[in-house]
């Protein structure tokens, strides 16, 4: 028997075996499935109803803003009016008139200090 003949016969055999395998698979799928054991239902977990939140204390109702707003208050540094100081100290004639002449005394010191 030559090689060609042998190969042909082998391939044929394989083909038949494969078809038989497929048939077996198909037939097994037609079998009755196993009965599925019934699982008793578990109780559904419900979230507890929310407790009522405490009622907030009602705050003062903000008044409507009226523009322009007042200027912010400054730091609490006492600032007496000094206009009298400025008036005098910027008036040359007044300064001259009220100046106290200082007696210039010759220094008695000698040498480098």
């Amino acid at each position, binding site marked *: 028997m030559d090689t060609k003949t042998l190969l042909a016969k082998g391939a044929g055999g394989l083909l038949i075996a494969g078809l038989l395998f497929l048939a077996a698979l198909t037939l097994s799928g037609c079998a009755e499935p196993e009965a599925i054991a019934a699982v008793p239902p578990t109780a559904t977990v419900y979230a507890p109803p929310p407790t009522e939140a405490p009622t907030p204390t009602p705050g003062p109702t903000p008044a409507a803003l009226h523009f322009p707003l007042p200027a912010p208050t400054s*730091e609490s*540094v*006492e*600032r*007496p*009016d*000094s*206009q*009298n*100081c*400025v*008036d*005098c*100290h910027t008036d040359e004639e007044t300064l001259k008139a*009220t100046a106290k002449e200082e007696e210039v*005394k010759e*220094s*008695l*010191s*000698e*040498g*480098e*200090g």
Partner: protein
Amino acid sequence: MHERYGCITCHGGVSGTDDKEAAHEGLVRDPPSAKACAVCHPEQAATEGQSLHANLQGYWTVLEARSAPDKMAQIRLVMENHCEKCHSSCGQCHVSRPTNVGGGLLTGHNYKKLPPMNLTCTACHGSRIQDEYKGKNEGVRADVHWIKAGMPCFDCHTADEMHGALGEFNHRYDGPVTPSCSATGLGKECHADMPLAPEIEQHDETHLEALSCQACHSTTYKNCFNCHVGQKDGEVYFKTDPVQMTFKIGLNPRRSAERPWKYVPLRHVPVARDSFAYYGQDLLPNFDALPTWKYATPHNIQRITPQTESCNACHGNAEFFLTADDVLPDEMEANKDVIVSQVPEAVEEGQ
């Protein structure tokens, strides 16, 4: 910004009257920082009391050392009449010239964050610091930091130093070295890499440990002698002998961890045993407790000085060192710890 507070807030006085006497009632010409400055400048005002300009602690330290507790009443009188005029408040730098030099506003009643040094710093520190720094001593060049770098005082002497923020010290040379040659104010680090510079012959460990920077890089400076104070017709005065220009290296009288050098320049101070004789007998019974040649940092730094000309400019040469021959006989005991009894030996040049 300061004008919004008006005059009376800081200076006192009375509002609403044109009469001079009435308006000036309670007037404070030079308001203390607690009243005038602390509200807005609490940080500076908090430490101002520690400033040596404010508390004159340096004077008290040396007077207490030389005097005795039972003499302090007269010493206080000396301080009040002759020394406390050096006290300076915030305004005496930032608004006006110091009272010690006649006062007067710097630029109207404007506040100067950095006051002009010629009207404040060197107005008081004139005869020594200014003359050294600006080269006003005949034959002595100005400090290189001024003549070449144009550095004003506050480039090294920071606001923190002036405001007493660095701590409480007994003396100008108490505590850390500020400023130091390797670290100055304003965040600068000058000469930080200089100390151990191998290309500079004498910047080896031996010299740097033995000598302060000024010992090599300072030059001739003023030394004062024989000050006496007194009063005449209600006018206080002082009298000192003519200054002597010299440069002397002695043993460090303030040797410490911060100032570890063995040799430093020394400047003579004009105190004498009878400096305060006008106010009482023997007011300095412990006169010898401190040297009259004191630790000095002359402000006339040069790169090249007579000391740096050669090794044997100093080695084997007593000229630059304070020896017994340089000290007045009456002051030998006071200066015994700073006199150099044996100058460093001469060396082979290039060694």
